[in-house]
């Protein structure tokens, strides 16, 4: 593409660092033009100019534009406010909401450069990712989310009035504790829609209750039949979606509580793709703000001063401190994602002999198409295992440290050399596998014919045990379930061991 650009005499869009609405529109139009040139498909954007206080507000409700009231949001708010006041946190970088139209926030305090950067990053980078990536297409409904959040908030407010804030807070606390276990990994979800939700909510209440009653039929089962039933577990297959199971089968929940469980489950599901595409999503947006603004610069539409400010901010974002640095906090997803997309473009445009061996499919192809394909069809785990190149492994000097509690020392399992590339690539991909990051916990048995106790099972991965918060979470499960709850760990040999229980 570079050959198509020609260096003209500079006719910058603006010289000043002050922004105006007219300028914002002008920049947006230019960035949009270049984005279309590279074939980025986006939802229309709604760009909202807000103050820093409003930005802190937006931060604290996990970026949801509409959200119900809960103390934990207050805690986040106070944290954000504190660090902003101390100047620890720049609020400049985006909040962008996966909705149609895609909502992005600009802070009024920012310079024109930063506004342009955020527009390119959020309204064209993230926006196109939301629209294109398969996980977002499957799991979230950009059309319906705002309506659903409005529904959720008003429903929760209504229930607070009817049943009291304390009861609501307890229920929400318990649901939040299980939020990460509220998603079916393998089943496709139904689309969210405000109209449907409202119409069906009452219907569902009545229906659910009748089902539950049936499940817990109080007639004493006959002795013989009881023995046989004891042998079969309920549910017949383990369930990974704890919140779903509770919503449908918890014996004592009030109808409104079931609806709350459902709301939290739906919101968890909405954020599920974001948790799985952090590297890709940020990398993609960063790659595009970098590419789009450079393109405009090459066209002579941006001043040198603009570029200096932009590059400073950009470099801060994609800086990866080495492991021995004081600032090291693990791998920076912006840095990894940005480097990978740049690397794919390099492989397409200037493949080396090594690249041709490792990536015969993409070496020398059209980079725009290749990147688009990569963006659409992967999540972090598969993206890394597909595209992390030896070149980048060397560049980042990646190495694998194995910490085994049976060994008295750490082992360096692989480094950035010929023998280690595949190992590193696989290990890094595994690191982004959600299943590796969060314990795999499933509903094993609900003793519907006996004491109604619930048994969860933790399927251990690499012998890693559950942390100390387990008992606390179990209390929340028991709160929702209403009867005894216990959790067992199952080791690699299939041996189950009771770790914790919460008796009511």
């Amino acid at each position, binding site marked *: 593409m570079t050959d198509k650009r020609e260096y003209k005499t500079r006719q910058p869009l603006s010289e000043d660092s002050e922004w105006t*609405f007219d300028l914002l529109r002008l920049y*947006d*139009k230019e960035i949009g033009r270049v984005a279309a040139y590279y074939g980025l498909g986006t939802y*229309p*954007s*709604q*760009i*909202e*100019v807000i103050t820093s*206080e*409003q930005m802190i507000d937006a931060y*604290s*409700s996990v970026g949801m534009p509409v959200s119900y*009231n*809960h*103390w934990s949001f*207050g*805690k986040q*708010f*106070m*944290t954000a406010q*504190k660090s902003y006041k101390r100047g*620890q946190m720049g609020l400049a970088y985006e909040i962008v909401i996966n909705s149609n139209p895609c909502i992005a926030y600009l802070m009024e305090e920012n310079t024109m450069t930063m506004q342009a950067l955020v527009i390119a990053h959020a309204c064209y980078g993230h926006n196109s990712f939301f629209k294109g990536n398969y996980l977002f297409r499957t799991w979230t409904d950009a059309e319906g989310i705002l309506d659903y959040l409005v529904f959720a908030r008003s429903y929760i407010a209504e229930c607070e009035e009817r049943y009291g804030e304390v009861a609501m*807070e307890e229920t929400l606390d318990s649901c*939040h*504790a299980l939020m*990460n276990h509220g998603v079916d990994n393998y089943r496709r979800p139904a689309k969210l829609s405000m109209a449907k939700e409202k119409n069906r909510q009452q219907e569902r209440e009545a229906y659910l209750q009748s089902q539950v009653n049936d499940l817990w039929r109080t007639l004493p089962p006959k002795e013989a039949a009881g023995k046989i039933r004891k042998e079969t577990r309920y549910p017949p297959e383990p369930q990974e979606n704890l919140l779903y199971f509770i919503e449908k089968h918890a014996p004592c929940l009030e109808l409104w509580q079931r609806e709350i469980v459902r709301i939290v489950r739906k919101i968890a599901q909405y954020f599920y793709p974001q948790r799985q595409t952090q590297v890709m999503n940020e990398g993609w947006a960063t790659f595009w703000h970098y590419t789009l603004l450079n393109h405009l610069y090459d066209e002579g539409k941006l001043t040198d001063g603009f570029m200096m400010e932009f590059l400073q901010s950009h470099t801060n974002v994609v800086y990866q*401190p*080495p*492991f021995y640095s*004081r*600032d*090291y906090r*693990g*791998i920076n997803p912006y840095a990894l994602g940005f480097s990978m997309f740049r690397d794919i473009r390099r492989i397409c445009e200037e493949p080396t002999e090594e690249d041709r061996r490792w990536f015969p499919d993409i070496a020398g192809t059209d980079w725009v198409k290749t990147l688009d394909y990569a963006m659409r069809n992967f999540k972090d785990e598969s993206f890394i295992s597909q595209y992390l190149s030896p070149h980048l492994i060397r560049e980042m*000097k*990646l*190495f*694998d*440290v*194995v*910490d*085994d509690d049976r060994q008295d020392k*750490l082992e*360096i399992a692989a480094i*950035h050399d010929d*023998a280690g590339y595949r190992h590193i690539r696989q*290990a890094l991909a*595994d*690191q982004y596998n959600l299943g590796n990051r*969060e314990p795999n916990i499933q509903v094993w048995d609900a003793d519907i014919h006996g004491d109604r106790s619930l048994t969860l099972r*933790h399927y251990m991965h*690499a*012998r*890693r*045990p559950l*942390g100390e*918060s*387990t008992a606390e*979470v179990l209390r929340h499960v028991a709160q929702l379930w209403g009867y005894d709850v216990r959790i067992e760990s199952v080791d690699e040999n299939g041996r189950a061991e009771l770790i914790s229980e919460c008796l009511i």
Partner: protein
Amino acid sequence: MSQFVDRRLSGKNRSAVNRQRFLRRFKGQIRKAVADVVSGRNVTDLERGEKISIPAKDLQEPVFQYGPGGRRSIIHPGNKEFIAGDRVDRPESGSGQRGSEGSPDGEDMDEFVFELSKEEFMNYFFEDLALPDLVKKQLSAVPEVKRMRAGFTSDGSPANLHVARSMKQSIGRRLAMSSTPRQELQEAEERLAELAAKGQDDSPEADSLRQEIESLKARIASVPFLDTWDLRYSNRVDKPQPASQAVMFCLMDVSGSMDEERKNIAKRFFMLLYLFLTRSYEHIDLVFIRHHTVAKEVDEHDFFNSRETGGTVVSSALELMHQIIRKRYPIAGWNIYAAQASDGDNWNDDSPYCRDLLINSLLPLLQYYAYVEIKAENPQSLWKEYEYVRSVSPHFTLQRILSLEDIYPVFRELFRKKVTK
């Protein structure tokens, strides 16, 4: 094409509700933190917000997560020394290859720190003291103002219309507006009289004079009796009420039996009196007198932090206070308040002397004297003598205190006076 929306003017503080919920939920921890903060503050320094920190583990939201142990592999960037197969020691703390621990600003990560506003802080402070709502309101409110007369204005509400002033204006205006026609009228009448004297009463000149007289009379009559710009209204302005000065004596026993806890209760007692005085007086001096067998004037830090041993002679403090009043605070210019905290110990011989000293020398100079006996055993001689003082003086009050809630009743009289005034 994107759409731009300017949201800057639509509400901020969307999180205010969530913040309140947070405060409500962690009330217990916050109250404890506030109590700690109050202990560290000066008596005069209560009314400001504060950074409060509560243990972070209390407000964690639990989720299922991995604990330490098992086998895990972590990819790190920036290798400069390792090759595959190396074995290295585990770093001292934390997991992985962290370079350093601890946050950059040196703040403890185990604490959640946030700011309470002045009002919130005061609310937590009051909560412990079990103040009646009316008093709380009184203390939290801005100083009272008094409406003072300040002359007259030309506009105001009808209720403030000043009739006499308005009529005065009216008379003056009517005089001024009608003076020329009246002069002309007088001249015309005189001329008419002259004509009449000459017998020319029917002449055309006389007729025209009569006409002129008529029209002048009409002009005079047309001057309005009361016009809008005659109206005068009483003017009143707000003048802050506390305009005088007071001195507050803090007396405390620092003998060995006054431990930290007792001192903390005493401190709140002093704080509350100070807070009350700030509502009534513009300027307040504080005098700290500590005593065991001898009394000494000290600064606030020493007052609360020093600890001495030995017996207790209360009269030494009262004598010192009397001297200081005579030397520095003439009663003509100062309102004098005194607050004494003690655990009740005193030499038996000294107590009757204290009583006499109070009744004869001190109480006539004072607005109010409050005595608290903190966590004392059985009432001792001082208490009995002081009870007698109360029976003879309305400006004296005393109270035995076991916990923070008991402090307020000491001031009940004081506050009631204020409320009914």
